């Protein structure tokens, strides 16, 4: 397997508890599904790969551009969805002209795209966040419970998009405790205890 990112002997301690202990993980192109019950460390694992929590021990190697979409939409209040995505695209050096079509593809109308994000519904904010997949186009995509707040239609579109990204030889890591329909198309299912 071509390795896009890896963890070696990774241990993450939050407070006085080791959430992840001595984990070895290699991620390559395709879909990796992370499964596990609540509090099993799925979110922490994704945050560790994204470099958002420090490793107490072990090594993290992520040499490719990474997009981490957490359980919340990560959109700054006071700005519109369009401006949020434009700033993030510019920050990453991606063309800002991808933002409009990407938001439209995820069902955000031009009018809603220019409204402050705090006036959008949770589902709309989630869709706007997912549009970053098509704007920033990173080689490694980390999705933490991405189906939360989505209706059936958007969930189906997301599952299709995840398979599409995998078809483009990108590495997609999805942490979820639902959506078993993803498993047949996954290259690997990692189960956390």
């Amino acid at each position, binding site marked *: 397997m071509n390795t896009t990112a890896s963890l070696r002997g990774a241990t993450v301690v939050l407070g006085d508890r080791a959430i992840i202990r001595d984990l070895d993980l290699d991620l390559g192109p395709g879909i990796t599904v992370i499964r596990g019950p609540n509090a099993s460390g799925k979110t922490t694992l994704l945050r560790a790969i994204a470099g958002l929590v420090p490793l107490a021990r072990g090594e993290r190697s992520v040499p490719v*551009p990474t997009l981490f979409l957490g*359980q919340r939409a990560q959109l700054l*209040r006071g700005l519109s969805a369009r401006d949020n995505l434009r700033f993030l695209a510019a920050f990453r050096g991606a063309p800002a002209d991808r933002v409009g079509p990407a938001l439209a593809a995820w069902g955000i109308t031009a009018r809603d795209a220019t409204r402050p994000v705090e006036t959008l519904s949770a589902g709309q904010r989630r869709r706007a966040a997912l549009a970053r997949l098509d704007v920033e186009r990173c080689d490694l995509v980390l999705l933490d419970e991405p189906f939360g707040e989505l209706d059936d239609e958007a969930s189906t579109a997301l599952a299709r998009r995840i398979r599409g990204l995998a078809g483009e030889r990108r590495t997609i890591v999805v942490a979820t405790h639902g959506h078993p329909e993803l498993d047949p198309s996954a290259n690997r299912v990692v189960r956390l205890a």
Partner: protein
Amino acid sequence: MTLRRIGLIARREARAERGQPDGLVSAITFVAVLILVESLTVGPLAAGQPAVAAALFWIAMAFAAILATSRSFERELEDDALDALLAIPGGRDAVYAGKVLALTALIALVALVGGALSLVLLSLDVALPGHLAIVSIAGVLALPPVIVLFVVLSLRLRSRGALVPILALPVLVPQLVAATNGAAAAASGDAAGALGWAGLLVAFALVYSVLGLTIVPAALE
């Protein structure tokens, strides 16, 4: 590249504040009310003395800057917006400087309104208005590097609302002393004194900026 990202974060902050101006509005309201209450409490004669008026103004500014900075980071945490920046390479390095830049502009606006109110409400005579402007600019530059640093250091703490003033204000005492003495010197016609204190304020701003740029990227992990 980093300078471009710092500019982007500052612009993003300014746009968000324009869309949801609660940080600016609460800081200006706070400064206005505090100057009014302080002037009533100490009486018009005492409040009109340059040293007293300057002290009242800069204490109000310090609290207002803490208020605005805390609000700015609360907004970042509300929907995990900060994570989006930190997960992008270079994000950690640009956040501190971008926030300091944007909040300096915001605090300058608060200082402009608060300064005008002080001059009117306290009927102040300023012998050297140009020097007062220089001291005010230097004082505004000196506040955000310290306050942003302490707000970031306390981001993961539940009681950060109470902790930031407790941690930041003792560190801000030298800046407040310098700003107060500088403004009082400008008001009473001591040009050399005003410029000396302004220089000290700029030095404080530089030292804490370097400290923040060094510490904050690691603290944000």
